[in-house]
């Protein structure tokens, strides 16, 4: 594996190997000295064409914990605003001596394009509405830690599946690992066509949550709100918001996840977000170990 472009390209064993490696890094992160010399002398470039704080910070910390040098290249400060082409920007970064390029872009397929031009390993940190593979891996890692395994596990992914790269990667990752996946949301955001991915589609929230072991909430992208996918924020919360009452329909030990940033009171009730069933902050912590595992896996498989 030279690049991580999407979960689509990964075999089950490859996903399991990354999750196992992440366990090793999670142990490192619990020590007083939270750093290992594994990637000493390597350079990681974060190339973000879309604003992001959490993913970029998580990659930055992951690279630093592995003793790599990190450069952050973000759009407003770069030559892109001066009209430089995407490939020219990437070639410039390569000329700086990057070994890994972590890229996020609002267009699907940008990481794939770059991977054909760069010698460096390309990691997709979110491309358009296509994939966000490291988020799916850290979610799988978090689920594995709580539930032990994936076989027969019922996972509901709730919200704007249509525009969510997190959902796309998670569907593939969880299906590959053997979980049962349900998509829950309004028909405008969860079209029937998703059934082709081998998942169940529920347009009724209560029905969709019944008996599930994991509830994965997605962020409602408020910037898309004016396009008529749902009438209003209040109505969305009434029909699709995760409230304590709805949570009680799931399995007694179900966990609640959210990739962040959350809209409290729109897709998730604030009491649920802060409840002991919520593993939302753990996801953030696990993101570092998982991204360390991805960097490590790409480094040792040239």
């Amino acid at each position, binding site marked *: 594996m030279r690049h991580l472009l999407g979960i689509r390209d990964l075999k089950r064993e490859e996903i399991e190997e990354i999750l196992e490696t992440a366990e090793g890094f999670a142990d490192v992160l619990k*020590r007083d000295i939270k750093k290992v010399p594994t990637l000493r002398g390597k350079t990681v470039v974060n190339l973000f064409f879309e604003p992001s704080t959490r993913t970029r910070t998580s990659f930055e910390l992951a690279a630093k914990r592995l003793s790599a040098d990190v450069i952050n290249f973000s759009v407003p400060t770069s030559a892109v605003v001066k009209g430089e082409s995407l490939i020219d920007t990437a070639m410039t970064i390569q000329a700086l001596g990057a070994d890994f390029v972590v890229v996020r872009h609002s267009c699907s397929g940008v990481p794939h394009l770059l991977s054909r031009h760069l010698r460096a390993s390309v990691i997709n940190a979110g491309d358009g509405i296509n994939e966000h593979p490291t988020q799916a891996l850290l979610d799988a890692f978090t689920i594995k830690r709580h539930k032990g395994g994936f076989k027969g596990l019922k996972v509901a992914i709730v919200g704007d599946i249509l525009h969510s790269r997190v959902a796309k990667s998670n569907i593939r990752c969880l299906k590959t690992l053997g979980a049962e996946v349900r998509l829950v949301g309004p028909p405008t955001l969860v079209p029937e066509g998703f059934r082709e991915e081998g998942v169940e589609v529920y347009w009724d929230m209560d029905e969709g949550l019944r008996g599930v072991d994991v509830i994965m909430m997605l962020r409602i992208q408020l910037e898309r709100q004016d396009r008529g996918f749902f009438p209003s924020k209040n109505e969305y919360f009434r029909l699709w918001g995760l409230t304590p009452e709805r949570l009680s329909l799931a399995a007694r030990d179900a966990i609640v996840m959210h990739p962040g940033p959350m809209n409290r009171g729109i897709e998730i009730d604030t009491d649920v977000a802060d409840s002991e069933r919520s593993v939302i902050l753990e996801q953030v912590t696990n993101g570092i170990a998982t991204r360390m595992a991805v960097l490590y896996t790409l480094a040792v498989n040239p």
Partner: protein
Amino acid sequence: MEGIEKVLMQSDEIERTLRRMAHQIVEYNRGVEELCLVGIQQGGVAIAQRLAEYIKRTEGRDVPVGSLDIAFYRDDITKRPQPPKVRKTDIPFDIEDKVVVLVDDVLYTGRSIRAAMDALMDMGRPARIQLAVLVDRGHRELPIRADFVGREIPTSRLEHIEVSIGDKPSHDRVVLKTGR
């Protein structure tokens, strides 16, 4: 063509050797106070457990045993044909000011031991680190030597030494393999 295999140590000889090493470790450290054993993944872990068992029989005391994975500390991760698999590091005790006996099956270039010492240092500051190996096959690339050696076996770089120590002591073997 298959390579040639030669059994260098049988189970009874391995047992005698490990018992002797257990005695040496206790004698050298004048008891088991402050002593702990850390086996290097993967080959050193079972040997460390065996040594602890023999120490317990003579001293009547449990010595803490841990396992250490050194994949993150290797200096050759990008050069190996097979990527190192990450195994469990489990050291459920504090190594601060302890005498840590690192245990491995075969001592060869010394690079694994260098990596293991760096890994240990990131977990605390042991009073001392000592090294126990079942087989020393020579060809050191770093100034490292073992404090407790089961057997010195001069080898060629083309040869390969395979140690199998498991749950069934009667199946234990040290085998020399030549060619491919």
